[in-house]
């Protein structure tokens, strides 16, 4: 058997793709003393297989070891990962793989968590009525806040703008005579407005009376 062929068989073996016949060929190869130096690393597995364990020994742990390397490199297929998980679901784990047992056992435990509550509505929502999410309520509240706030702000700015004008029209009297004069002017203005209002009222009443007379 040439080296290239053995390399190919080993590669298939690590990927768990070898046939029974190919595995026998590998065992035959490793039983002989004259094996290539590049294959020496794999020899103990096959020698152990032949000498100590007999035909029933499986190489699962070697395959799993290979898969674990791929697992940590995130290159393992889903099927390979499932084999790893299945392997670690048993308590009897090979010595070389015990360091990984805790990790995969933990994943297994996490996968055992169950939802044990009944699948039923606690409170059935009325049909046709949509439940408004809290987010939208918050958005609506924020919008109201900004609109009301904006109005207040607008009003207060307006007040600030008109206040100096009002102040400018206020004239402080310098002596009592001037104060009296200003008061009389103010009263006269009020009197004029009152008279004008009274005239309009009388005129209105006259119109109503005329209309009543015409109606009778």
């Amino acid at each position, binding site marked *: 058997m040439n080296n290239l062929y053995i390399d190919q068989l080993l590669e298939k073996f690590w990927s768990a793709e070898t046939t029974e016949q190919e595995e026998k060929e590998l065992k035959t190869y490793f039983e002989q003393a004259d094996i290539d130096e590049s294959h020496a690393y794999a020899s103990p597995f096959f020698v152990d297989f032949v000498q100590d364990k007999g035909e029933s020994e499986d190489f699962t742990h070697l395959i799993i070891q290979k898969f674990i390397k791929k697992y*940590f490199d995130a290159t393992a297929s889903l099927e390979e990962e499932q084999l790893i998980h299945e392997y670690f679901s048993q308590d009897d784990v090979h010595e070389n793989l015990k*360091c990984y047992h805790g990790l995969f056992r933990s994943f297994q435990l*996490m996968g*055992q968590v169950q939802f044990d509550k009944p*699948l039923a509505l606690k409170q*059935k929502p009325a049909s046709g009525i949509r439940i408004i999410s809290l987010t939208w309520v918050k958005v609506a509240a924020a919008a109201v806040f900004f609109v009301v706030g904006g109005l207040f702000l607008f009003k207060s700015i307006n007040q600030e703008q008109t206040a100096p004008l009002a102040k400018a029209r206020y004239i402080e009297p310098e002596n009592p005579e001037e104060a009296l004069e200003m008061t009389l002017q103010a009263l006269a203005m009020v009197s004029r407005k009152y008279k004008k209002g009274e005239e309009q009222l009388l005129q209105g009443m006259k119109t109503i009376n005329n209309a009543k007379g015409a109606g009778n």
Partner: protein
Amino acid sequence: MQTENNLFKQIDVFKNKLFRYALNMLKNELDAEDVIQELLIRIWQRKEQFDQIENKEAWCMTVTRNLCIDKIRARKQSSQDISEYHFIADHGATPDIVTEDRENLKIVMDVLNALPENQKEIIHLRDVEGYTYKEIADLTGLSEDQVKVNLFRARQRLKEKLKNFKY
């Protein structure tokens, strides 16, 4: 007319996945249960359309994810230590194994909780639920390459910490 029982029977087969996913994201059992309840309401409100959904599991996982994200944004209280869940004691193992499981799970959860959220989520979807890269990509909105990169980083981090395991 679809009855409540018939409607929710359709998600019975993957309800545990939904709950674990919510639990993994929220790290709080009550919050995770709230999310499942909210999911049931969503399904009830769309009961006519729900039958038409081809991949109900994917749809429910997406809604669950969105509800969890809303809840994370809204809440302020601290989360629960997931390794303290009662299920550890319920799997029928001997006290020694239960103790060992608890210790190992604590180490794994500590490492996972120290990972960025997206890496933790991807590890959960792949290693606990067994989803394909494509399914994870569809659910998280990442590309398949991004999923692989995040998974690689998360697993390398786990590998570094493996020396702390008891065996």
